[in-house]
């Protein structure tokens, strides 16, 4: 069973670059934070697809770390924006 994973990875990387456009344009800091939060989700998808493409099961742990930890940055941005830090 040979699945072509790489075209889908290519599409997702192009989507990451499109999120970069919102990071550049975004009028407020909230828009930029939303863009970074989106990229977090997309990067998890890319990592899982690449891990299957490389045929290495142990690489999936990296995706779990991303999903688990990179929203701490979003929480700090939200706390700063709300004036609660």
């Amino acid at each position, binding site marked *: 069973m040979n699945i072509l994973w790489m075209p889908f990875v290519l599409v997702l990387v192009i989507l990451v670059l499109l999120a970069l456009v919102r990071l550049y344009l975004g009028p407020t800091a909230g828009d930029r934070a939303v863009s970074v939060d989106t990229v977090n989700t997309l990067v998890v998808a890319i990592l899982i697809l690449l891990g299957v493409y490389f045929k290495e099961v142990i690489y999936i742990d990296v995706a*779990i*770390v991303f999903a*688990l*930890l990179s929203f*701490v940055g979003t*929480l700090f941005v939200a706390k700063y924006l709300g004036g609660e*830090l």
Partner: protein
Amino acid sequence: MKMSKIVQTGAHILYPFVLIFGLYIVLHGHLTPGGGFQGGAVIATGVVLVIVANSYEAITGMLQKVVFKAQESLGLLLFIGAAAIAITLGLPFFYNFLANSGSVFGLSVPFGPNHGYLNTAGLIPIMNIAVGIEVWGGLTVIILSMLSGLNRKEA
């Protein structure tokens, strides 16, 4: 000030998960990607998650800075001690005397492709544990010290 109740509940549910996952990364450092530094950083980020969800005044009651400082020193001592035991046995510094000895972490690796056995590699998992404890304490102390320096009067 603390964040909303939803964030707090989520952070408190996620904290044991992050902790056991970081310990998994630390202990499987010789089998899977990761190791002492990476696992320690994961656990420290989990502690920071609890710190950001609560107010600073509540945090000082829950997590003492002294514990983390002691943890950092303890990790460093454990690392140096594990490296120096080899000298007392008449071997070179950092010599992996536990490998292939048959005791804890001392099995020899079977030949051929396999998924990895936990109790192999000798001294390396112990070094990983020491580094993990140290990084866990050190990175948390950085965040706690920076938070204690904020000026809260005007806010």
